[in-house]
């Protein structure tokens, strides 16, 4: 059985280690916060916050306290606030250990496309280009194939890039792959999924 969204998020949470400062993207990456357990993880929100807490209880929303997805959130006892230039200084400066991001396409060189589909309304890259260029480790969480059944793990990205040679690890509904010299390497399969099934669903070169 392929992993569902929550299982993918739980698997991504295993990538995070005690003491890490981490930035989580929108979508499945946001769910990763639910699975960090007892690990001492500090979440960064690039609009200017370290130590992001859960959503507020109804009636306790604060318009001055939002995450990068513009959702109301809460602070923790460890929280620190700062301005946007400082926020991206810590991102660009390599202080954030890892980013977990969604993607439209990843290729075998680690190129990532997740911000623009030509001909479709373009909303902008937000902080994604800065994150992938600056953080220590980029972990992509996405479905292995698109809604038409086509692989999202390609030999070469076709969409405009967010970053070149930036992805370290890809967690899909079928398993976990690393970007290595020569292509992608399967490091884990979802329970009941075979390596051959992953190879069949992957356009990119899969190395042994």
């Amino acid at each position: 059985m392929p992993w569902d969204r929550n299982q993918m998020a739980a698997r991504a949470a295993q990538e995070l280690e005690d003491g890490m400062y981490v930035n989580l993207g929108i979508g499945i990456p946001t769910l990763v916060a639910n699975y960090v357990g007892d690990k001492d993880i500090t979440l960064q929100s690039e609009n200017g916050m370290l130590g992001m807490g859960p959503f507020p209880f109804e009636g306790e929303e604060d318009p001055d306290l939002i995450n990068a997805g513009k959702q109301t959130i809460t602070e923790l006892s460890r929280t620190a606030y700062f301005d946007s230039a400082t926020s991206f200084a810590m991102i660009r400066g390599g202080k954030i250990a890892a980013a977990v991001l969604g993607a439209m396409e990843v290729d075998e060189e680690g190129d990532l496309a997740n911000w623009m589909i030509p001909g479709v309304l373009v909303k902008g890259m937000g902080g994604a280009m800065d994150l992938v260029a600056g953080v220590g480790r980029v972990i992509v969480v996405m479905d292995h194939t698109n809604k038409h059944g086509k692989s999202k793990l390609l030999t070469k990205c076709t969409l405009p890039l967010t970053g070149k040679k930036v992805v370290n690890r890809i967690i899909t509904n079928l398993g976990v792959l690393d970007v290595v010299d020569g292509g992608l390497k399967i490091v884990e399969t979802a329970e009941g999924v075979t390596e051959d099934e992953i190879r069949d669903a992957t356009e990119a070169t899969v190395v042994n």
Partner: protein
Amino acid sequence: MKKVYANAAEALDGLLHDGMFIAAGGFGLCGIPELLLEAIKETGTQDLTFASNNAGVDDFGIGILLQTKQVKKMISSYVGENAEFMRQYLSGELELEFNPQGTLAERMRAGGAGIPGFYTKTGVGTVIAEGKEHKDFNGETYIMEEGMFADLAIVKAWKADDTGNLVFRKTARNFNVPAATCGKICVAEVEEIVPRGSLDPDAIHLPGIYVNRIIQGTHEKRIEQRTTRKTEDA
């Protein structure tokens, strides 16, 4: 040194002209200079270029200046959530320059710090890098981005004293600090102007040297994405 003005219209008096370049603070609808934007709308100033992370929504934030077609160009990192923006952009009425969010923040910070250009890894190998100078440092490739020098900066803070020292609240600080620094003139709107001496000098987020004019006003502080959890989730 009189910095405190009665209202947004008076604070902007003599500062606006057609075709000017304005840097605005805020992230989404959080910490936006809503009163100053409303006052700019009332003046009818045309052909404005805005550097602002976002473009507001249709009826709030910079969106109100899009409705009145006062904006010629936006420099932003993300512009979803705004139907009128998209209509004007797709019909060619509005120019749009995407900057990666951190590059936009650093362009403002650099401009305010007297730095006309800097090198960053952000955007290397993407459309953002096209036409820009590339330079290698220690075996890695960077692109040059330019500091931003705005005619006017408009920002929103929580508290100010009458010398313009500003304190922000939570994530409403965001782009307000770098935006304020990159303007030739900066006008700040705040929720409360407090007596001199009542702000902790060790806890000033933006020193008054960057702030030329201040107004106090009542803010709507609209929430864009109200998300909550139920008590039993705790």
